[in-house]
C-alpha cells in the first residue's frame, strides 16, 4: 500500500500539526484575549498583522521567515546565541514557520468567542470574589469552549495543508521537513502518479471528515463562539 517514506511523511505531518496546534493554543489565547478586550489603538495594527497570513502568498511569508531565521536574521542570531544553530531546514524551523502561518486560524475564532462573552459575566464573577485566573478558567474557558475547539481544528488542518511555506523554509528532508504535501509533490515530479493518488486521496478524505465534524459541531453550538 503506502511506502515507508509515505508513512514517514504522514507521521511527520501529524507531529508537526499537533505540535503547532498546541503551541498556537498557548500563544494564540493571550493574543486573542488581548485583541478581544483591549481599547488600545494598537488593536487595529496587531489584528492586521495576525491576519496577514490569510492574504499573503505563503512564499512571501516563507521568504521573510527564511531571512529572519537565517544566520544574519534576528531569530537566527538569537538561536545561534543560544547554541541551537539556525532553524531553516529543520523540524523546529518548520514549526516556527507553521505557527506564523496558521496563527489567524487560531486567534480569530478564540477572539470572536471571547468578544461574544462580553464584559458582564467577568464583572459578575469579580463580584463573586473570583480573581483574574479564576475568572479565566471558570468563566471564559467554558463559555468560549466552542471557539477554542474550532480554533484547534482549524489550526491543525490548516497546518496539515500547508505547502508553500514548507518548501521555502523546510525544504525536503525526509523525517525532518518532508510532510505529506511535499511528498505528493515529489511523487508527481517523479511521475509516480499512483502513489500521489493514494496520498492525495487520504488528504481529501481526512480534510472532508474533519470539516464535516467541525460543521456539525458548530451547528450544535453557535458558529465560532459561545452563545
Amino acid at each position, binding site marked *: 500500500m503506502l511506502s515507508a517514506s509515505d508513512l514517514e511523511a504522514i507521521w511527520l505531518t501529524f507531529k508537526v500539526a499537533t505540535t503547532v496546534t498546541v503551541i498556537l493554543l498557548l500563544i494564540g489565547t493571550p493574543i486573542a484575549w488581548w485583541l478581544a478586550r483591549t481599547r488600545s489603538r494598537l488593536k487595529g495594527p496587531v489584528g492586521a498583522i495576525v491576519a496577514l497570513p490569510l492574504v499573503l502568498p505563503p512564499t512571501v511569508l516563507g521568504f521573510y521567515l527564511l531571512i529572519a531565521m537565517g544566520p544574519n536574521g534576528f531569530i537566527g542570531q538569537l538561536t545561534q546565541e543560544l547554541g541551537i544553530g539556525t532553524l531553516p531546514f529543520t523540524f523546529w524551523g518548520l514549526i516556527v514557520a507553521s505557527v506564523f502561518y496558521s496563527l489567524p486560524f487560531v486567534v480569530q475564532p478564540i477572539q470572536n468567542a471571547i468578544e461574544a462573552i462580553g464584559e458582564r459575566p467577568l464583572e459578575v464573577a469579580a*463580584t463573586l470574589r473570583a480573581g483574574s485566573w479564576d475568572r479565566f478558567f471558570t468563566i471564559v474557558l467554558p*463559555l468560549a469552549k466552542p471557539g477554542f475547539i474550532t480554533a484547534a481544528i482549524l489550526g491543525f488542518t490548516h497546518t496539515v495543508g500547508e505547502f508553500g511555506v514548507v518548501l521555502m523554509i523546510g525544504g525536503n528532508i525526509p523525517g525532518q521537513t518532508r510532510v505529506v504535501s511535499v511528498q505528493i509533490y515529489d511523487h508527481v515530479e517523479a511521475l509516480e502518479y499512483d502513489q500521489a493518488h493514494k496520498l492525495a486521496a487520504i488528504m481529501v478524505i481526512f480534510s472532508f471528515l474533519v470539516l464535516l465534524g467541525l460543521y456539525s459541531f458548530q451547528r450544535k453550538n453557535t458558529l465560532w463562539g459561545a452563545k
Partner: protein
Amino acid sequence: MPTNNTTTENTESIETTEKGLYAKFHLQHSNTKSSGFALNVDLTLPESGVTAIFGQSGSGKTTLLRCIAGLERAQQGHFMMKGEIWQNDTIFLPTHKRPLGYVFQESSLFTHLTAKGNLDYAIKRSGIPLPPNLYEQVIDLMGIESVLAHNSQQLSGGEKQRVAIARALLIQPKILLMDEPLASLDNARKQEILPYLEKLRSTLKTPILYVSHSVEEVMRLADHVVLMQDGKVATQGHVEEVFSQLKSPLLVNSDTGVIWQGKIIEQDDKWHLSKVSCAGSDLWIRNNGDTLGQNVRVRILATDVSLTLTYHEDSSILNRLPVKVLEIVADKDPAMALVRLQTKQNTLIARLTYRSVEHLALTEGKVLWAQIKSVALVR
C-alpha cells in the same frame, strides 16, 4: 433633620469614622459616547437598612454603584465601609477583594451552569464557612427550591433574578449592591419579586444600596433615600422626609406623594378596616390581613388629597385631618399646584388646581381640613 445636600465633613474626620459608609467619587467620562457626564458625590450613608439611590436614567446612580463596587475606577475616589478602606488616593481594592454582593440589572447568571451551580460558585468563593441553615434560609427566602436543578437558561426572567439575588447573598457580603434589579422585568414579574425583596429587607442585617428610578420600589423598600441628579446628590434623607419635600423637580410629577410610617392600632371587623396610627394622625385603611400592632408604611398620593375649609361630615371620605399650609409650589402642569401641608407631626402633599387655590384663598399658615380619598399600604 438630616436633609443636608452634600455632607461637608473634612478628610480628617472621615479617616476616623468607624461607622457608616463614606463615599466620595469624582469621575469624568472623556469618551464621546457619554460626553459631558461627570459624577461628583460626597456622601455618608447609614450602615444598616436599605438606602435607595434614586434618580432618572443618566443621573449617575449606576455609575456611583459601580464605583463603590470597583467595577469602574473614578479618577478620584474614597470609599470606606465601617472603617475598612476600599479606595483612597493610594489604595484601590479590586472588585474581587471587596466583601460585597452585587445584583445586576439584567439576568447575570452564568449560562454554562445550573441554578445550583451558580449558587455554588458563590459559596465556594465567599471565604467564610457557610453557617448552618443559611443555604436553606436563602433558598427559602427567594423561593427557588424547585428550580435549582434547572439550567440557568431555562429559567424565567423573575426566577433568574431571584437566583441572582440568592447567589449574591450566599457570598455573605458585608453590603449588598443592587442595580435596578427589577428594571428588566415586566410589571407582573416585578410584582412577583417585590415581596421577596421586602422579606429580604426585613430579614437581612446586611445594608443594601438599591439603585432605582421607580418611585414605587423606593417607597416600598427604602429606609433612606439619596436623590441623584446630573451626577450629583440633589438631596438625601429618610424616605418619609425626602418624599415630603418638593425641592427637586424630580419629586414633582404625577407620582408625587408622601410616605408615612405607622402601626395598626385597631381592627374593625364589621367594615373590614384597620386603623393606622402615624405619628399622631390616625388613618382608616382597608384591612389587608395585617395583625394588630404591626408596623406598616402607607403612601398618600397628592392627587388623592383634597382640601376643605370646614369639616365635612356629609362625605364619602373616611379620613379627614386638620392641616396647616406650609407652601404652595407650581406643578409641571400650569393648571395645577402642589400644596405642602403640616399635619400633627407629618407632612402631606395635595395636588389642586390653581383655581381652587384661589377659591379657598390658600396662603402659607392657613389652617383647614385635608380629605384623603385613598391610602395605599405599601408594606
